[in-house]
């Protein structure tokens, strides 16, 4: 009994000691990466040469769930906690926590490569400061099951086809082949914004105020009609409430839907899971009455103002931004490059399949077609507030809790309230 007691106490003491052991080294830089794609592995590899060049510096790359980046990281930053560097996707919303790294990087080079995206990181502030490095560019887009088109004998709409033409064509295909649904779209305000902007919605004006216009109304009406006539299933936008993100890409993987509107980040999954099951392709952006726009997106690597080693953090970002590291990263991550020179010269993807390379080319070809409104929306500090309002309110319209007018009114009110609340006037 006595020995048991001793062991138990000893074990407890050990556990306490182990938990207390959080080795804090002299110069440790913590980098937080979401676990999508290759996660942090590539950065870890690229950091090695930086560590060699700067003895005594230890770069710790931590992979966390994407949810942590979106939900927990902002609260942590608010409390002055969190990593030194992170790869984030809410570029504008977190703006006030960023460290100004202009002095530690080659500012001209950054401006030349990422001019437009650097503005997203400024969150509407009037400054030329550099707050980080955009890592990848993602593009929303439509995946189409070509085999189903072939079997139905319906011609695949050409580049420049409108959303309505696509809806019509996919409906015919679905009918002819007994496929469950014609079109699906991720339950995400970001995906919906692609449709809305191509229908002429501004979403945000130059002053950073929300815009609810006829374009948005037309897009919502169109969207509701598709759900009512069965073009789109209720599972995604109808069944879930609030701002919850949902996707059903498995429907496309299993050929249950003819067209799936998602984004460039699922390419790798297409390669491994669809394989030879059916022919597929990424289509050029469907057009609306206003433009043929899809939303851009993507991550950026930023350092935070609370870091104890601002110079090191800035230099590390500069290190990752060097051309050879950029090329290494993009070609291994199989993503669309974000730097101007890479877009211009193209990037090699040695390990990707032919289909994936074609799809990447199609995605990249959409970038010059993007409307100004899309860029402005992407860089808006209150983009997430607008996107949450869009998903919440559209779901309510689909469930007859609101009419379209009511939804538009609420969307504007929601965003204005969020802005007021954030600025402390309430």
């Amino acid at each position, binding site marked *: 009994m006595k020995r048991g007691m001793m062991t138990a106490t000893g074990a407890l003491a050990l556990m306490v000691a182990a938990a207390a052991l959080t080795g804090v080294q002299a110069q440790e830089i913590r980098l937080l990466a979401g676990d999508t794609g290759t996660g942090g592995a590539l950065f870890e590899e690229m950091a090695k040469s930086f560590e060699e060049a700067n003895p005594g510096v230890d770069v710790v790359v931590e992979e966390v769930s994407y949810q942590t980046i979106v939900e927990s990281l902002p609260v942590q930053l608010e409390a002055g906690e969190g990593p030194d560097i992170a790869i984030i996707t809410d570029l504008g919303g977190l703006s006030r926590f960023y460290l100004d790294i202009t002095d530690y990087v080659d500012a001209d080079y950054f401006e030349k490569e990422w001019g437009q995206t650097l503005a997203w990181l400024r969150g509407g502030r009037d400054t030329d400061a550099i707050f980080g490095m955009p890592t990848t560019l993602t593009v929303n887009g439509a995946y189409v099951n070509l085999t189903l088109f072939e079997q139905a004998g319906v011609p695949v709409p050409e580049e420049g086809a409108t959303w309505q033409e696509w809806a019509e064509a996919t409906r015919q295909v679905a009918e002819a082949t007994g496929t469950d649904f014609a079109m699906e779209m991720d339950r995400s305000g970001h995906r919906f914004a692609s449709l809305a902007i191509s229908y002429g919605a501004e979403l945000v004006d130059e002053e950073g105020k929300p815009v609810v216009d006829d374009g948005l109304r037309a897009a919502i009406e169109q969207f509701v009609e598709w759900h009512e006539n069965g073009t789109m299933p209720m599972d995604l936008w109808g069944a879930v*409430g609030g701002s919850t993100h949902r996707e059903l890409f498995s429907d496309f993987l299993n050929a249950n839907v003819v067209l799936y509107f998602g984004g460039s980040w699922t390419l790798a999954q297409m390669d491994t899971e669809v394989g030879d099951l059916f022919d597929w392709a990424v289509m050029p952006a469907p057009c609306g009455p206003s433009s043929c726009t899809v939303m851009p997106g993507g991550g950026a690597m930023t350092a935070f103002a609370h870091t104890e080693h601002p110079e090191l953090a800035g230099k590390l970002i500069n290190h990752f931004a060097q051309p050879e590291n950029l090329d290494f990263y993009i070609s291994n991550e199989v993503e669309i490059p974000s730097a101007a020179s890479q877009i211009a010269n193209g990037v090699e993807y040695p390990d990707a399949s032919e289909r994936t390379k074609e799809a990447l080319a199609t995605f990249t070809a959409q970038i010059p077609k993007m409307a100004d409104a899309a860029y402005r929306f992407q860089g808006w500090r209150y983009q997430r507030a607008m996107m949450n309002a869009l998903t919440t309110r559209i779901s309510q319209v689909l*469930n007859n809790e609101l009419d379209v007018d009511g939804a538009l009114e609420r969307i504007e*009110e929601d965003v204005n309230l969020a802005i007021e609340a954030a600025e402390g006037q309430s």
Partner: protein
Amino acid sequence: MSAGTQFAAAAGAVVALPARLVEPVMYGLQRLLGIRRMPWVFLLPNLVAVILFALLPVFINVFYSVSGSDRLFPWDRPLVGGANYATLFDCDNFLDPSTCSRDLFWRALGNSLVFVPVQVTAMILIALLTAICLNRDIRARGFFRGIFFFPVMLSPVVVALTWQWILQRNGALNGLISSAGLTPVNWLVFPNTAFFWSVFVTVWAHMGFYTIILLAGLQAIPRDVYEAARMDSATPWRVFTRITLPLLKPVLLVVFILAVIRSVQTFDELYVLTGGGPGSATMLMVQYIFEVGFASQPRNFGLAAAASLLLGVALLIFTGIQMRISRSGRDD
């Protein structure tokens, strides 16, 4: 040696050494303060924890509710007075949520007002029926008791993912239905079915706990009471309503209060299962508070805090009424 004392011995062993160090300290304190102040010494650690991690957060919430901005620290937040409350109560017609500025708050409140009575009633009826069945002289009693208790041990996330996996369009339930030749139903797409399943899943996950408590209550009723009733040849239904139920009343009351409090606090399971949908059909109060104050960007701590305080007041009023009813019941 029963499992209970074994457990106590094991737990005791883990804390034995620190306890040996504590004893002289406590004895010293007793000499210093006198026996009359000792209860406060015993209370102190728990009270400190309660104050620091339960009462203080509530007070911070009170402050949040009268201040604005998305800043976390109270000293960074400007006072805005009753603006957050005014926003919540900004309604043209209180009976129609869609006329309110924060219609989702009122919808969530309405949903909670339906969900809580339905879920608690279903929970208590099913738990009582199960307890009565388990109280009979049946085979494999321990096994069945265990089966009903098992889901209580699962984490809410696991519970929700399990049922989502079963209820989805291509899930097991629809597989079963279509192999029986019926048309599959997309369960989580329709407000009514989604509401039904959110009640079902939460009852499924928690009923075992209440069953065990009610079972204990049933077993505590002395047998001779029944014997006496049988002598008087009272009809058995009468025995149930006149003897079993009244004797079970104190236990039922505890079960009822616990079930209501936990029902009002329902969040994790439904957040993963339905996300509050379709539309806002299964969005309950706590989820609304979570979405406004945590999941949205920028976070509106002020509005969330105001909503949570209103929820707290509602719960307090409920408990007060409950206490009064049970007290007046005792006077009969």
